[in-house]
């Protein structure tokens, strides 16, 4: 098992948190942890409606009491009626409770301006990565020679690369253009594919939109080019869209790959093989710990669908509460519902918070020499670039660390701020970045930026 360097950082962070708990002296009172894409750990509150429904589903006595709003109780009642034996403790159908799967497909259709969605093509899984892994298992032939290749972006979400390699596949990076706001150029896709010749057999193209860690939202034009490329080169398109609720840029709009594909019409809309992934972990719900995700499969061969069914069925089913969380995400309170005002207020608050945070990040970091930050149009993270002085890079080498890891370790020790070194995300060679979560209360963001600014200014001075 490859040892991932970042655990050095998180282990040290846990140690420091423990030291602080024991009130050992440090130049700061607590660690600001923005390492993971974990809104609740970062201080964001869960949505009341979601938690109320889950509680009532767990403890149905609440359905009959007046403790909870009436629409919460009605929703819980409906959901319990859809669970075998009226309990969230029963197994469900492999792909998920049929009524929930159905409602997810309705959500997709509505989101995509009417492009039809078939419930038979949807699988709920414990977290989107589990579904992605199953699809990859079908695509990646561990026995093949040459090895199966999957084109993945640089920078990327590391777990996907890790999964591909773990299954015996090869990752083929295509680099996003940071100077142009992380734009995806089709020319770069061609280059990447060419680079794979003789090294592996590429079968799939993995895209993340909105981006992780880089905060872009793709334009329709880019997406059409990607689709045409996938079609031309007979690549299976894997669209990781878990951050679709996180769009901050005023001019940005999230379009799903399914929608764009569908609106391109036949023959593309009937032939390009697509798997799109969504999750309850990100966006307004931020319920990472519940592990709820789904995949929608488009244009797959019926025999392959059978295989996929078998794969999913080996783990019986996704946890019922995760399925319910997805249902609540895709079918939230509507105007007129008693819970709507509070729901709307809470989601609006999170949205405003994210927009505010990315604006502040952009302002503050771009004002610091040694940092450059593209506008964060979408997603859950900022991924600013570090321009480190040669002396710092030298020091990192001496300590046998990647420069951005060295920066992060020092930032943690001296300022009590935990962020992720960008190297894990596989950006272009020779560039250094940090990644941190922007789904966090504004005051946490402000405090973090303040500490980071002070630290950074000192750091640049020390290594000048």
């Amino acid at each position: 098992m490859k040892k991932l360097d970042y655990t050095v950082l998180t282990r040290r962070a846990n140690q420091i948190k423990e030291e602080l708990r024991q009130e050992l002296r440090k130049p700061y009172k607590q660690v600001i942890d923005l390492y993971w894409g974990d809104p609740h750990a970062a201080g964001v509150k869960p949505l009341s409606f979601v938690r109320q429904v889950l509680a009532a589903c767990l403890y149905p006595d609440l359905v009959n009491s007046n403790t909870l709003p009436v629409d919460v109780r009605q929703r819980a009642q409906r959901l319990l009626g859809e669970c075998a034996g009226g309990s969230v403790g029963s197994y469900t159908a492999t792909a998920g409770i049929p009524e929930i799967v159905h409602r997810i497909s309705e959500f997709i259709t509505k989101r995509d301006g009417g492009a039809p969605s078939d419930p038979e093509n949807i699988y709920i899984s414990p977290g989107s990565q589990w579904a992605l892994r199953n699809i990859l298992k079908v695509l990646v032939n561990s026995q093949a020679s040459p090895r199966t290749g999957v084109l993945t972006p640089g920078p990327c979400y590391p777990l996907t690369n890790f999964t591909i390699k773990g299954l015996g596949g090869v990752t083929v990076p295509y680099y996003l253009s940071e100077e142009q706001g992380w734009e995806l150029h089709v020319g770069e896709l061609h280059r990447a594919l060419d680079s794979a010749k003789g090294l592996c057999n590429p079968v799939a193209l993995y895209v993340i939109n909105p981006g992780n860690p880089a905060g872009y939202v793709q334009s329709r034009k880019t997406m059409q080019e990607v689709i045409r490329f996938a079609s031309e080169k007979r690549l299976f398109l894997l669209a990781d869209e878990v951050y679709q609720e996180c769009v901050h840029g005023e001019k940005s709009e999230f379009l799903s790959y399914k929608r764009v594909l569908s609106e391109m019409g036949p023959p593309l809309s009937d032939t390009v093989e697509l798997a799109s992934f969504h999750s309850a972990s990100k966006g307004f719900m931020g319920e990472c710990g519940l592990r709820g995700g789904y995949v929608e499969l488009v244009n797959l061969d019926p025999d392959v669908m059978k295989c996929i069914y078998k794969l999913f069925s080996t783990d019986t089913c996704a946890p019922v509460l995760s399925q319910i969380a997805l249902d609540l995400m895709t079918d939230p309170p509507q105007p007129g519902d008693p819970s709507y005002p509070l729901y709307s207020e809470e989601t609006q608050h999170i949205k405003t918070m994210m927009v505010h945070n990315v604006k502040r990040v952009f302002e503050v970091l771009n004002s610091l020499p040694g940092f450059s930050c593209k506008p964060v149009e979408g997603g859950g993270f900022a991924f600013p670039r570090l321009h480190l002085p040669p002396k710092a890079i030298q020091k990192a080498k001496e300590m046998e660390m990647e420069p951005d890891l060295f920066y992060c370790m020092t930032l943690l020790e001296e300022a009590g701020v935990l962020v992720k070194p960008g190297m894990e995300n596989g950006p272009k060679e020779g560039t250094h970045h940090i990644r941190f979560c922007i789904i966090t209360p504004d005051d946490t963001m402000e405090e973090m930026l303040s500490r980071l600014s002070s630290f950074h200014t000192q750091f640049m001075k020390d290594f000048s």
Partner: protein
Amino acid sequence: MSSLQEGDLDLRGTRAPSRLQAARGTEESAQGAEKPFQEVMDVSTGDPHRAGMKPVSFVRQVLAACVYPKLLDEKSLPLDARQRANTLLGVCSGRSVGSYCATAYGIPYVCKSVTEFIMRRDGGVSSNPEDIVISSGSTKTLLIVLHLMASGEGETRTGVLTPMPCPHTLPTLLNMAGLTLVPYQLLEDQGWAVELDELHRALRTTRGHCSPRAIYISNPGNPTGHVQDRKSIEEVIRFAATEGLVLLADEVYQDSVYGQGTESLSYKRVLFEMGKEYSKKVELVSFHSLSSACMGECGLRGAYMEAVNLDPVVMKYLRDAQAPSSPPVLPQLALEVMVNPPTPEDPSYKTYSQEILHSMTTLSQNAQRACEFLNDLSGIKCQPARGGVFLFPRLHLPPQMVEEAKMLGVEADVLYCQRLLEEEGVRLGAGCENGQVDPNFHIRLCVLAPSDTLDEILARLHSFHLRLLESFP
């Protein structure tokens, strides 16, 4: 479509087609196709809630308050439930069940509670939180270990001695993990006992065929209901020790031993009571989960394994196996409550113990009643069960039916179950799913259900079975 044909489509292990139909098929039956029954009664899996059993109140109260912390002030919830919820929220990042679990192997506090439970259960035999790995469901937990063992091709391919019959999900898992299933027959006529000679025979078949590394055993038996006595457990342990096999002990039903005079013993306890010669040597991994009889929380998906005497490097691998992902938080909290239930001084104890007693009584009475009932039916012979939630009766099917099944390309027990489902709306499990390849046919039914539900199921089965026998003169 061709890009997908590149993939690893070696997914054999096609178990009963009825499983394939099951999931998507519920929609059809829900859409009111003309059927002679109101609704399908499904007792093919160990899913007590599906059958109508109620969850343990304390568990659900704690979980509800964890999920919606405003309930910590809700007076209608017992104080001890609210206090427990408060404690458990304290071990979640950001005091939310929605945050990622901080480690890949489970919340340390929960691992510790698990070890305390194990020590109480095993009369003080020590247990270390570092030996515990939590995952979302026993399938995942088992797969982590199986993947670790898998290696080799052909003669060197790892083999796992597997009881016949075994849990119906196991053969597919072994296949998926790239392991060879080495069957050892349990003795049906002796209540599905484990026989040492049979273990040796099974082991001999591996020569030149595969490389045996582990022996899997479920105790109480799934689906057999057999509960091993100390002597039997010791025999298996000695066998594993002599042959250098890792013991994989599925003990999910450890809380459901109901047979008169039958003692519930864990593999760990017996191992340690056999003295240092064994307790320091034998590699044992035991599995437990929320799908136990008394909890029945299959849909919550939570399980743990305890590993004993494994190499530290291997243990580290197991603990990191789910990294950088992590198991879901809520099921872990449920596990904590399962292993650390109310004690006699707690306000909730009375209700809790009554509910457990009710489950156990129902289970025990159902198992006995159903076994007698089945034995009264011509052509069905059922071994009495002493634990677990299943009965696994044998069917003597008319030869014409066996022929018909052959022509239709299915096993005869699958055909039996399909017909039963179509005609009476009762879903049982076909014995072939449990791996039996001998000429006998079996069916599998979960008897942990409300008594009147079970009676209804038995009545429908009775009616169907008699009709079937009459139709084959």
